[in-house]
């Protein structure tokens, strides 16, 4: 499915954006390249005919989550932070884990790249995702929603904490 040119285009955007996140010195630029990366990912979803996932990817990640990121960056008015490569123990461990992950992925993704890998018509559509969420992945879905509720309650409590101080 899809033109390989588009696949490579979007893949480049995804990876380029990801590299930008790590290497750009301006926090706002980093955040923006993350948005590019996410948009590229949405493009890959479109190539897989998963329009719903693509739309949700842009809507939720690029359109809402990252807006809040940038909102915070603007509010704090962060200065450029100089990033210098420093070999520490933590970075070493990180490197090893990343390498490991890459090897595992390369070894185990045996499927050919441009195959009609997706045979199911409902893959990535509203119906398909809905079906899966409410049947096969019901328990993880519920657990995630519980987690989100907890997170929201936590956020509200954190935000409320400040208030009495300010109003008095």
């Amino acid at each position, binding site marked *: 499915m899809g033109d390989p040119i588009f696949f490579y285009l979007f893949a480049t955007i995804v990876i380029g954006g990801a590299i930008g996140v790590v290497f750009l010195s301006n926090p706002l630029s980093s955040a923006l390249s993350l948005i590019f990366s996410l948009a590229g990912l949405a493009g890959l979803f479109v190539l897989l005919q998963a*329009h719903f996932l693509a*739309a949700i990817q842009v809507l939720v990640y690029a359109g809402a989550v990252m*807006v809040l990121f*940038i909102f915070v960056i603007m509010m704090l008015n962060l200065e450029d932070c100089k990033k210098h490569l420093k070999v520490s123990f933590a970075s070493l461990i990180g490197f090893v884990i990343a390498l490991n992950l890459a090897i595992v992925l390369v070894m185990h993704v045996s499927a050919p790249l441009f195959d009609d890998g997706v045979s199911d018509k409902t893959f990535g*559509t509203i119906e398909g995702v809905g079906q899966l969420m409410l049947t096969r992945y019901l328990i993880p879905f519920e657990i995630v929603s519980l987690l989100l509720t907890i997170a929201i309650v936590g956020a509200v409590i954190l935000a409320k904490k400040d208030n009495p101080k300010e109003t008095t």
Partner: protein
Amino acid sequence: MDILIFILKIVIPPVLVLNFIPLMIWFERKGSAYIQERRGPNRAHILGIRLGGIIHNFADVIKLITKEDIIPANVNRLYFIGAPLIAIFVGIVTIAVVPLADSVQIGEKLVHIQVADLNVGILYVFAISSLGVYSVLLAGWSSNNKYSLLGGLRAASQMVSYELALGLTVVGLFMLAESASVSEIVRHQGPHVLHWNFVQQPLAFIIFWIAVFAETNRTPFDLPEGESEIVAGYHTEYSSMKFALFFMAEYAHMVVAAALITALFFGGWQVPFLTTLDLKTQAPFYLYVTVLTVSFIALFFGLLLLSQFKKGKYRDARDYEVLVFGIPLFLLALAGGGSAIFTGPWALPEWGRVLFAALVQATSFGIKMTFFAFFFIWIRWTLPRFRYDQVMNFGWKGMLPLALLNIVVTGVVLLWKGNHHG
């Protein structure tokens, strides 16, 4: 043939939106003038032709293009220049999934009168328009101006908040149409006015409408550029064409929003009480009626214009403007009406019937859209502006719960109906 359709699909919608912008600006200026008991623009003319002030738009364009394009010192140039581009891009691209008429059968091919009939059309609109907030954010941040920053922050929080309500209201429509495709939703509403979604989903309609005002940053939600408070908000530092792009983007957003309201709640291209089939089969009769009506209206306006002629009113070419429009109108009306009366209803070939139906539907869509676009202007010159915290409270404590309630009620009603029918 395919390539021709392809090119047309790519070219027509942006051109449509871009051409609607000057019309909207004219509406804004002339509409606000009549609301405020003024005359509005009526001076600029080309060889005496003023078109009721539309020519002012040309003057505006020339002015905006030729003005000095100032990029202040200490701005982040990349983002500063990029922001207006995002704004106009988002404004134009969202029209892609809105159908202008029913799908047309040309030979063996079914041609959709829209750029792309995505099965997640609505989500596409929200996804793209949610990116619009970046233009405002980046403009506010990169301008290196406190007023701009405040404007950017206001815009970001407002748009994110109201996007939620906006997204939730359309869930009810999905449930009714059993699809997220805009063309499906339009088709599902049918030609009967009482089956349109503004009757079926009144709460959703009201919430959607209000949220759309917030999304387009129009009064009473124009806080991001609330001029009496934060000067001009996020576009304080912009000048020349970059400012114009923001300006155009605002109107493009309004056009798209009006198109969406029309498509989602007012039957889109549906002509009241007439299905596509009706239009096609009865095409000769309707064409006859249309030609007669249009001729009559043209006759009326032509005579009205001619009666306005008074030599020496302006003592220049403007004197003859009414004649320039009045005489052709009058003659056309006579010619069209006369020939229609005498040659009677014409037999139409198949393609003519199809074309006629599509044109009538597109006109229906255009009329509805124009009305809702005008509504934005009407509201703007009527209501005062909200305060920042009131906007937030209204969005989170008022609109969001109501939108959720709408989903629940719709679901319950659908289930109940399903049980009774099944």
